[in-house]
């Protein structure tokens, strides 16, 4: 809500002034603390910052690649699981049970274990025809784990669509499958964009786990820099890169939510 007139300008001025004062106080306290020069040398070192910028962003491209590939598969696979979970009737019970076991298992096991087990274990079986690449199994592990979480998000979205929507669609003569495809799922997905994004922000960071299998991504690269220089500033560079990736996604989500909220809330009671 925008305040108008003199009182609005005054509130803005107060807000700005208090923020500036707060920031100045923090900076003064921190930079005058006895340990600051040492902390600055260890964590905020300009020379190592510039040096890391030469190698870490390139390694970060690997994180982005892993993230983009995995995300596509997760969005699809998780939706499949959510739909299987919602299949009605006793004949589909084995499939529903399988979906439940899958979701429980992969949400329960720590992601790092799945990466180790699949990344080192699967190729060790030496079964011909199975791919051996470490990136492949790293992505598979991430897809399996995150699809479990995301399928629950989809499920919540599907359940949140008012049952009258399904009734209205079925009453037109649309089959169960077509109802899901054209009426339920499109609404469900729009409703769960914020929690979906939450899971994807987690995925972005978990791409660093693939480094356990060998490939050098941004976090591993910063570990290499730190190990050879005993200075922690490279970690700062990596942190900034991850945050920079998150911000546009978060703003995009906000925009999507605002755009759809109107439409979703409109049709409560027909007013």
């Amino acid at each position: 809500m925008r305040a108008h007139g003199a009182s609005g300008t005054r509130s803005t001025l107060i807000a700005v002034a208090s923020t500036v004062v707060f920031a100045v106080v923090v900076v003064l306290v921190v930079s005058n603390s006895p340990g600051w020069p040492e902390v600055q040398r260890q964590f905020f070192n300009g020379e190592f910052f510039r040096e890391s910028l030469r190698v870490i962003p390139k390694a970060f491209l690997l994180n982005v690649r892993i993230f983009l590939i995995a995300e596509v598969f997760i969005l699809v696979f998780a939706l499949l699981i959510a739909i299987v979970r919602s299949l009605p009737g006793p004949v589909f019970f084995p499939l529903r049970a399988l979906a439940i076991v899958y979701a429980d298992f992969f949400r329960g096991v720590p992601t790092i274990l799945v990466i180790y087990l699949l990344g080192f274990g699967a190729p060790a079986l030496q079964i011909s025809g199975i791919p051996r690449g470490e990136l492949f199994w790293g992505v598979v592990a991430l897809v399996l784990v995150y699809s479990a979480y995301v399928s629950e998000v989809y499920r919540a979205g599907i359940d949140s669509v008012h049952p009258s929507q399904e009734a209205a669609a079925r009453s037109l003569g649309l089959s169960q499958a077509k109802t899901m495809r054209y009426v339920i799922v499109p609404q469900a997905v729009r409703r769960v964009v914020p929690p979906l994004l939450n899971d994807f922000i987690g995925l972005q960071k978990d791409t660093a786990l693939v480094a356990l299998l060998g490939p050098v991504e941004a976090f591993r690269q910063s570990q290499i820099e730190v190990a050879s220089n005993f200075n922690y500033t490279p970690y700062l560079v990596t942190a900034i890169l991850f945050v920079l990736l998150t911000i546009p996604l978060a703003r995009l989500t906000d925009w999507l939510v605002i755009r759809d909220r109107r439409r979703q809330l409109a049709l409560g009671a027909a007013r």
Partner: protein
Amino acid sequence: MSAETVLKIEDLHKSFDVEVLKGISLTLEPAEVVCLIGASGSGKSTLLRCVNLLEPIQDGRIEFLGEEITAPGVDVDGVRRRIGIVFQAFNLFPHMSVLRNITLGLTKVLKTPQAQADEEAADLLARFGLADKRNEYPDRLSGGQQQRVAIVRALAMRPELMMLDEVTSALDPELVAEVLDVIRELADSGMTMLIATHEMSFARDIANRVCFLDDGVILEEGSPEQIFSAPTNERTKQFLQRIIEAGRL
């Protein structure tokens, strides 16, 4: 329009945890308009949902155009295609434009080509004064407009029976009239209709027959004059009395 009985309900029993419909029998002939009246909870909505096979029944049978639709192995989607139903709320698909709401059934169920479906939908919308809302999303429409679109959407499927479940009950009073006009026009055009409603004046106006539902049973059935002016059943009288006192008749 066929000359055979459109709808025949025989001794229908339906339970949730308790029995809600306790032996309903009802027939609709072509072009007949039957209004169901009764208190909330009397089973009107449940009855309509059973006819549309949205609810399974415990006993009895329903025949639609001579076919027993409650028998096992019936093509349920096919039955629903030929029966149109409009609910009280949450009708339209919010993520689709008005036009797409209407053409969805045409293209995906009736397999009408998109261009032809668009044209048919536009014509129907124009007929009911909604042509300019064609590309709007439902959130931009008033409640009355939304319900009119919902009726058009059901109509677009060319059903042989239209069922309306309290379609004006959730509307602001000034929006009710426009919806009633649409229903009236439908009835005048010869559509067979089963209407659950609280709008007593409207029912008296439009119905060929009125059924009073009370606690899962049709207590009284007859012409509007009979039911509204000279009810015989005691409970019917009490119900109508309360309605009159509330100024709704």
